[in-house]
């Protein structure tokens, strides 16, 4: 289960196997909401609030949560596509952006991203081979070498370069386009790939093919994935560890088996209970959660889930819960399972819902 033991030594490795590939510390991003006559700031959306986690070398870390919980903002913050208000990244032991660490452009060579929308993430005026060759070319590779690398990558993602390299994005199917996007993300030989809902827009059979391709590429190219999705089944299939987010905060994190078999946070349980099942004996009989998530412009004080939580008590509105080990830690419990909940009875109540 511990993925790092399978990792081959990478020549670019600096911190050693025990050093997490990416450490995220207190990441925070508030978006101003402007309005009124003078375009003044009238409110703040707390998109990502104090998110910390680490990604180990060679693992797949899944991030799940409802729409609007800050998953994609987190991805864009990690890529530095938007600047965080506060918080820092440490990539393989090197702080990012600091005077003694690595620069943002250096980080971007080692960390790449695949976007959800396979069509809008490819330049419609460029043949796909040029889209893939673009980044290596701009980073100083000769045109011929960049092209050759692009064709090798096309072959690696399962698209015959002789047949496909001169095609334009609108001439490919969604699954083929997402393969091109994966190839483009791999063109700079990154060590960490962020997959932001990368398979969510594909239909199920194509999704399975692309997931298998991702697994295959991970093994072959020694990659680490940050896999963002709202699809719990897919996350369970591909991830080693899971991070559950709610309204911009991490509510629970741990190994995939522990999260899926013994979820501790009431929100995680509700999320898992909402997972559709094909088994008629296990059909969902009562709604695990009702209502929409609260408005992130004015999130609830203390624990942000308390407004929808059936266990909520006074303490939940007063103190922000921090990520700690579950209270009823059994002898067999994994040590890296953490949950942000004040209440032991809420954490222990994992039999209450028909959790599949």
């Amino acid at each position, binding site marked *: 289960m511990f993925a790092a033991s399978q990792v081959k030594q990478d020549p670019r490795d600096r911190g050693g196997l025990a050093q997490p590939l990416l450490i995220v510390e207190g990441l925070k991003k508030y978006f101003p909401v402007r309005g009124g006559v003078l375009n003044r700031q009238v409110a703040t959306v707390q998109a990502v609030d104090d998110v910390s986690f680490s990604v180990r070398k060679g693992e797949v870390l899944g991030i799940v949560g409802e729409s609007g919980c800050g998953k994609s903002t987190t991805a*864009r913050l990690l*890529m530095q*596509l938007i600047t965080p208000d506060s918080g820092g990244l440490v990539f393989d032991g090197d702080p990012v952006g600091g005077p003694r660490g690595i620069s*943002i*452009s*250096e980080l*971007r*060579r080692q960390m*790449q*991203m695949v*976007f959800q*929308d396979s069509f*809008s*993430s*490819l*330049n*419609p*005026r*460029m*043949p796909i081979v040029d*889209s893939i060759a*673009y*980044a290596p070319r*701009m*980073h100083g590779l000769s045109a011929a070498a960049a092209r050759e*690398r692009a064709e*090798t*990558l*096309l*072959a*690696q*993602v*399962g*698209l*015959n*370069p002789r*047949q496909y390299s*001169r*095609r*334009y994005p*609108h*001439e490919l*199917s969604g*699954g*083929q386009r997402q*393969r091109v*996007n994966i190839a*483009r*993300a791999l*063109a*700079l*030989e990154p060590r960490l790939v962020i997959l932001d809902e990368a398979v969510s827009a594909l239909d199920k059979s194509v999704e399975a*093919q692309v997931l*298998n*391709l991702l697994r*295959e590429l991970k093994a*072959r*190219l*020694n990659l680490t994935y940050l896999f963002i999705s709202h699809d719990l089944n897919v996350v369970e299939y591909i991830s080693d560890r899971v991070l559950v987010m709610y309204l911009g905060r991490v509510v629970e994190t741990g190994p995939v088996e522990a999260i899926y078999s013994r979820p501790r946070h009431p929100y995680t349980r509700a999320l898992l209970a909402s997972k559709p099942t094909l088994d008629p004996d296990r059909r969902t009989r009562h709604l695990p959660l009702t209502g929409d998530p609260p408005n992130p412009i004015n999130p609830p004080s203390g624990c942000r889930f308390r407004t929808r939580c059936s266990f909520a008590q006074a303490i939940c509105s007063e103190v922000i819960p921090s990520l700690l080990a579950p209270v009823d830690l059994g002898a067999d419990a994994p040590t890296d399972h953490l949950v942000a909940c004040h209440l032991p009875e809420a954490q222990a109540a994992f039999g209450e819902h028909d959790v599949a």
Partner: protein
Amino acid sequence: MAKLSAFDPALAAPADVLPAQPSPGYWKAVGQRLLRDKVTLAVTAILLSIIIIAIFAPVFAIQDPLAGSVMRRLKPIGTEGHWLGTDETGRDIWARLCYGARLSLIAGMTPVMISLVIGGFLGVTAGYMGGLVNTMIMRTMDVFYAFPSILLAIAICGLLGNGLSNAILALSIVFIPPMVRISETVTTQARHLDFVEAARASGTTTMQIIRYHVLSNVLGAILVYATSLISLSIILSAGLSFLGLGVTPPQPEWGLMLNSLRQAIYVQPLVAALPGACIFVTSMCFNLMSDGFRGAMDVKLNK
């Protein structure tokens, strides 16, 4: 790459079993769509012939456009030796129209080209940079928008004095704000698409992103708009000449000819209408051509 590998059929995308289809490039597809569009082909042919006549005016018109004759004033269409008649000083209308096409086209197209370069640059910069840069450029343009374009052109011309180059300069200034606005809009749209984000994420410089990803996606729309401005520019420059602010007599120019022939409108109405018809046909053709290009370049429309 850690391990270079050849194409692996086990991982292949399912469509690979299908035979390869011929896939034309983007511009090739645009060309094919244009070839099917009869109206655009026709107006392009008319425009090309007008341009050819303008360039080779001495070949098409044997008469001197400046040589008048008191004996042959205001002859009707079909007169021996002057098949389109003569003007109020006896100059051959056909020769003046041919030579006038030169000045009219120059006065129509040069301001558009100048404003395309300056306005396009400012607009793409404003659209890509956003924020304060955008606000500064766009608010400055809004100041120009406060004046009606023909009044602005007349004011600038009046300030600089008459003459062709001043008219061109005035029209360039008039056309920069709409050009900035169009290029800013399309660039802002393109800038927020995922492929530009992906290019930023790959750590390439802003100039590289603009050159390879933004320009290729906004240039089509900007050029189509510029083509539609040419017709407006021809009409405005003719208007300036008509008011005596552009080309000076006795130079042949369509707007100026319209002005001098207007006294003859009751004597020879058909002859007097000819320069106006030329202005109308040319600007109409530029408009229809830009419509045709817009349709042919719209990927979504023709998918």
